[in-house]
C-alpha cells in the first residue's frame, strides 16, 4: 500500500482541476470584450468522477475544456460576466475546501508518522 491513498490523490487531482478551471474562467473574463470569443469551462469534478468510476488512477488526470456558446452579443462574444464572476467565487471557495481537507488528511498521516509508542 502506498503512503498516499486514492482519496488523497483524488484531492490533488481536484485541486489541479480547480486551478485549471480558474485559468479558463480568468481567460473568459479577460476576453469579455473580445469580438467573437466563446467562453471555456471545465467540469473537472465530473471528469474526475468518471475516471475514478472507470477504475483509472486519479493521479495525473488530463482535463478537457469545453467551449460553451449560448448567449451571444452583437459582436459574437458569448461571455456573461456575471455568471463568470459567480463561477470564479465558487471555484475559489471550492479550492479552499479542497486544501483544508487535504491538510486535515495530511495531519492524520503526520500524527501516525510522529507517534513513538
Amino acid at each position, binding site marked *: 500500500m502506498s503512503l498516499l491513498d486514492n482519496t488523497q490523490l483524488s484531492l490533488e487531482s481536484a485541486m489541479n482541476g480547480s486551478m485549471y478551471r480558474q*485559468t479558463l474562467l480568468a481567460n473568459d473574463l479577460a476576453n469579455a470584450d473580445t469580438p467573437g470569443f466563446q467562453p471555456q469551462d471545465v467540469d473537472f469534478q465530473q471528469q474526475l468522477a468518471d475516471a475514478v468510476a472507470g477504475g483509472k488512477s486519479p493521479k495525473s488526470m*488530463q482535463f*478537457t475544456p469545453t467551449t460553451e456558446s449560448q448567449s451571444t452579443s452583437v459582436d459574437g462574444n458569448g461571455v456573461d*460576466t456575471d455568471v463568470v464572476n459567480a463561477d470564479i467565487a465558487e471555484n475559489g471557495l471550492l479550492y*479552499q475546501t479542497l486544501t483544508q481537507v487535504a*491538510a486535515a488528511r495530511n495531519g492524520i498521516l503526520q500524527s501516525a508518522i510522529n507517534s513513538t509508542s
Partner: protein
Amino acid sequence: MSFFDALNVSATGLTATRTEMDVTAENLANAQSSNNGTPYKPQAVVLSSIGSNSFQQELSDAMGTGSSPSDVGGVEVSGIVSENVPNQLVYDPTSPSANAKGYVEEPDVQPVTEMTNLISESDSYQADVTAMATTKQMYSSTLELLQA
C-alpha cells in the same frame, strides 16, 4: 500549464483594459483638436484573444507531460484603429478655419459614448481584479497546506 497561468491571464486582461481606458481618455481630450486643419479622428481598440505560447507550455506539450491542455493565454490589444466616422460640421463663421459657408469641421467625438465606454471598461478592470484576488487566495491556501 504553468502554476501561475491564472494570474498571468488576469494580468493580460488588466493591461488590455487599461489601454482601452487610455484611448477613451485620449478621445475625450481631443474632442476639439485638429491637426493643421484635419480634425482628430476618434480611436478604437481592437482586442483579440491569445493562446498560451509560454516556454513551459511548449516544453510540456512537446514532452506530453502537461497535466491539462492549455490554449488559454488571455487577451491582447492587436491594434488601435481610427474610427471611420464623418467629421461634424459646426457653424462658426468667426473661426479662422471656417469654410466659405461659415462651417468648421470638428472631430466627431461623442462624450456620452466615451463616458459609457469608460464605465464598462472600468467594470471589466474591476472584474479582472476580483478574479486576481480569488486566484491569489487559492495560491495562498496552497502554501498553507505546505505549512501543516
